[in-house]
């Protein structure tokens, strides 16, 4: 039940991030992910960065071997796609703060677009190591969102982690909801700020995935399976009911810290 599609377009978004576009039929919601099979290699979960219409897309950051091979794929090459899986974002908030670290903007961009389409006002705190790595800044601006940038090296926006500007925005303004996607320690901090300011937060969580069907237990996170109950979770439940931010499981199912 995989569909083999050919990549129609390859867009270099940042030095380490590439978007691959491909035709894909099944309806999807922002926040959902697909399993992308690179034949002869591996199959990885990837959020849909383009969710609607005939041409979908995933935006891949160079991490380990497989992601690096994925982002070297070019137009015309076949990949296997199955999904979409999981539950996406609640799109009902009117005043939204999206906090993205690293490739987190890949899932927050389409979700923010959908929220804007429903009339939300969106502010984005966008973080990266350096200016060139800021992902989808223009895409956020094009949808009418206000973008506050942060870079580790200060080459653009505020110097330092994006959690700083995020906390400041939460202190200065009123939001109905915070969405965040990025490294787990970043998300933990953002959730802490949101709590402090009484704003409900949702996180898009990553865990090792195999079946993506809520069966194999690879992505177990407390009482949840990230593939079917997530990847987007209410932060409150993540903190009270799971080991979020403390440990995850490696492919053997062993708990490893972090």
């Amino acid at each position, binding site marked *: *039940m*995989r569909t*083999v599609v050919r990549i129609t377009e390859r867009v270099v978004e940042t030095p380490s991030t590439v978007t691959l576009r491909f035709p894909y039929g099944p309806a999807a919601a922002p926040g959902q992910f697909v*399993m992308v*099979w690179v*034949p*002869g290699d*591996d*199959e*990885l979960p990837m959020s849909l960065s383009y969710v609607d219409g005939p041409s979908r897309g995933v935006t891949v950051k160079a991490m380990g071997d497989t992601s690096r091979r994925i982002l070297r794929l070019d137009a015309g090459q*076949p990949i*296997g796609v199955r999904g979409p899986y999981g539950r996406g974002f609640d799109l009902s908030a009117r005043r939204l703060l999206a906090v993205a670290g690293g490739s987190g903007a890949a899932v927050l961009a389409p979700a923010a677009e959908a929220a804007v389409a429903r009339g939300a006002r969106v502010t984005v705190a966008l973080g990266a190591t350096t200016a060139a790595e800021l992902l989808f800044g223009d895409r956020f601006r094009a949808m009418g969102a206000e973008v506050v940038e942060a870079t580790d090296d200060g080459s653009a926006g505020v110097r330092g982690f994006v959690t700083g500007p995020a906390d400041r925005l939460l202190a200065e303004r009123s939001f109905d909801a915070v969405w965040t996607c990025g490294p787990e320690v970043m998300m933990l901090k953002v959730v802490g700020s949101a709590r402090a300011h009484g704003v409900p937060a949702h996180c898009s969580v990553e865990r090792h*995935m*195999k*079946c993506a*069907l*809520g*069966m*194999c*237990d*690879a992505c*177990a996170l*407390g*009482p949840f*399976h990230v593939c*079917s109950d997530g990847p987007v979770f209410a932060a409150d439940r993540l903190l009270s009911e799971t080991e979020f931010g403390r440990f995850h*499981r*490696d*492919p*053997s*199912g*062993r*708990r490893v810290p972090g």
Partner: protein
Amino acid sequence: MAELGVRLAGLELRNPFLLASGIWGESGVSLGGAWSAGAGGVITKSIGSVPRAGYPNPTIETYDRWGMLNAMGLPNPGIDEYPTEIAAARAAGAPVIGSIFGATPEEFAELARRMAATGVLALELNLSCPHAEGYGTEVGGTPEEVEAIVRAVSRAVRLPVLAKITPNSADPAGLAEAAERGGAAAVSAINTVRALAIDVRLRRPVLAHGLGGLSGSAIKPVGLACVWQIYERTRLPIVGVGGISRAEDALEYLMAGATALEVGTAIAFDGISVFGRLADGLARLLDELGIARAADAVGAAHPGGAAARPSR
């Protein structure tokens, strides 16, 4: 309401539906979750001597809602770390059966001792994974192998031992007979059926491992045949497994001779709430048919019912 509780090899189960090994079975919290969702008991993922990552993805393929192919490659955290998970499952109140896999009778026996120490109520021996090199059917494919492993484990621990056998045999019931000789308390049938899928556009097998195991509705008739034959050729209680997703499926297995049941793939297609639906549905179906207790249905489709079993 019909009584769903059954007694399996000394275990009292509130209903016959056990979580099958390999599904929701790595984390203790998940095991507890299956119990909370209504399972009669839970079987852990098959645990080995050392942690194993399993095969790379793709590890599964699905066929509409009637079948699934997998080659997970026995990923598991290893017996050193696993007691924590069992503890979590037991804390949730779940009756836990520990599944183990090894390469030799000695390795099985040692794993059995360590698994027994975690407080599980019984052991299930995976003699039947069709796609793990050096394990599963490769060590439990013949009656001699099955007997030797079951005997080694039965001698090593006091717990009831369930031997999980493969349908990939000319004579699966002969494997059950061997388990009986080796001292098994029950036999679980069946594990998945050796199978393969090819992606014609990519010109390669879909699963990274190539060969895998078929599960789900597609194998229900295969599992029923095995249970039927085991019922007629051994006196062991049987745990029926393969393609159970509706109350009718469950009753078919009971009537073919199973005392308890395992549910796996249905969880992928229908969610963990399938346990609640199966229990409710079975109770209703038994009521409709005027059968007072699930246990009364066991073997009912055999001419002569329980009398059809061999005597000793």
